[in-house]
């Protein structure tokens, strides 16, 4: 046991390290955001948010692109959330009965997390667009993104489920409550923070993804009429304007700013939704 003086020194070092990490990361974020804002803020306006793009995106706005993005993310989460939640539940509660299956599932999810986004794009194209006949469409993009977001989502939800002490499960079992009821009434509400974190990470990943969407939801910048239409996502638009369209940089950064703003809104809504759910089910966080 180190003597008190040394212990206090170590303690102070630990506090310093934590604050330093915060300062470095917060500083980098501010730097990045300031850079994007400086380059793109001038192009932001109400017309930019609502009009269609003109002159290959150098003029006009990103209205249809925002709509396409929201639809793609909605499809992705609508598929990934229930699937991920169910899978996380199985891994956390039922995999104990078949540990090897649990390990295989976990390993395959971890490996999935390491696949390059361009491979997801080409795979999504081959499976959803060609083999399943969905073509370049918002649905194809959403399904591909769901595959990409799954590992993150499942991991985050599992964390949340692990937070529930085993005594709860044992007590409920002792009371003769069915496993499903335990899951619904006890585990799910307690796993809510993990689920929210997972959704937020998943949505973030979905919004940030470019290469996978180029090959699945596509390049068309028209306002989509249905989920089967091709629709350009904001990240694809940013990429195109920055890399393929000479003189498109300003609008690229403006679109990136809108994307960050969108993510802020979605994150805030998700957190709010989580708090409302928790309050409703009477569980104190």
């Amino acid at each position, binding site marked *: 046991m180190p003597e008190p003086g040394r212990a206090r020194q170590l303690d102070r070092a630990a506090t310093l390290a934590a604050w330093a990490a915060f300062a470095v990361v917060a500083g980098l974020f501010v730097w990045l955001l300031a850079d994007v804002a400086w380059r793109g803020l001038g192009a932001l306006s109400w017309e930019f948010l609502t009009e269609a793009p*003109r*002159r*290959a*995106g150098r003029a006009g706005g990103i209205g249809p692109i925002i709509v396409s993005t929201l639809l793609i993310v909605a499809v992705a989460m*609508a598929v990934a959330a229930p699937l991920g939640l169910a899978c996380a539940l199985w891994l956390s509660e039922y995999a104990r009965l078949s540990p090897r299956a649990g390990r295989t599932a976990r390993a395959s999810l971890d490996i999935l997390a390491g696949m390059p986004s361009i491979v997801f794009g080409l795979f999504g194209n081959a499976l959803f667009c*060609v083999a399943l006949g969905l073509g*370049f469409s918002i649905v194809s993009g959403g399904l591909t993104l769901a595959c990409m977001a799954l590992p993150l989502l499942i991991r985050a939800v599992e964390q949340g489920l692990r937070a529930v002490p085993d005594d709860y499960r044992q007590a409920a079992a002792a009371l003769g409550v069915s496993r499903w009821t335990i899951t619904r009434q006890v585990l799910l509400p307690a796993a809510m923070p993990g689920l929210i974190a997972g959704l937020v990470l998943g949505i973030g990943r979905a919004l940030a993804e470019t290469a996978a969407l*180029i*090959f699945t939801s*596509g*390049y*068309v*910048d028209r306002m989509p*009429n*249905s*989920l*089967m*239409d*091709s629709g350009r996502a904001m990240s694809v638009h940013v990429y*195109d304007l*920055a*890399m*393929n*369209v*000479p*003189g498109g940089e300003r609008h690229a950064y403006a679109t990136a700013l809108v994307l960050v703003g969108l993510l802020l809104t979605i994150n805030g809504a998700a957190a709010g939704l989580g708090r409302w*759910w928790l309050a409703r089910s009477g569980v104190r966080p």
Partner: protein
Amino acid sequence: MKTVQLLMLAVCLLCATSSPAVLAKEKLVVTGSSTVAPLVSEIARAYEARHPGARIDVQTGGSSRGIADARAGLADIGMVSRALKPDEADLLAATIARDGIAVILHANNPVQRLSDTQIAQIYTGAIRNWKDVGGRTAPITVIHKAEGRSTLELFLAYFKLAAERIKPSVVIGDNQQGIKTLAGNPDGIAYVSIGSAEVEAEAGTPIKLLPLAGIAPTTASVKDGRFPLSRPLNLVTRGTPTGLGKAFIDFARSKAVHHLVLEQAFVPVD
């Protein structure tokens, strides 16, 4: 769980009320080069404005995708940012624009011109320092394009270099990446599309274009054929195009879209 049921209802409603693009009487799918895509997108928009009911979907994925999709029938038209190769004789190409290729230096670089031999020597590593061509004492950062790109192949062909002999310091993909890399490196040299370089230079990016064989690198000199290094931008089809495909290709080659071609920093063909 009422919330879940509400959500599912919303999803079902969304799917039910949306109908696929059967609304459009005629649909065309165009895939291929991401260099050509912005131009073809704008041409498509102009065409759709003149012919309501027509829908032209433009997708990217690269020139090789354009060729593959046109062959396999996955796309009606392929976009290719180069001339067709001998083993692609089963496809028909229609050139809609030309794109010149210029060697660019940083604006702060005192060197004003380089001969063909000097450029070749720089790229093969025979000349490594700017002082050997009349510039500062600084090692040259050679910026080179990735294999397979038509810009690279034309560059190699013109300077009579073999791919393996090039000694690059940095390899880049798109023109914009090359321009941005060069803009941050006063000791760099790169070769990119003339149009992109012109637009960026005008916008204030610190780059300058070098004349090649004494010819000034402008879209004008590419247009009248004096500039020696340029590539065609093609729309390819399997067999002679008919119907909407033919109408669109004819429109893309007409004078009506010349301003669109110029806006995208390419050179219209007559």
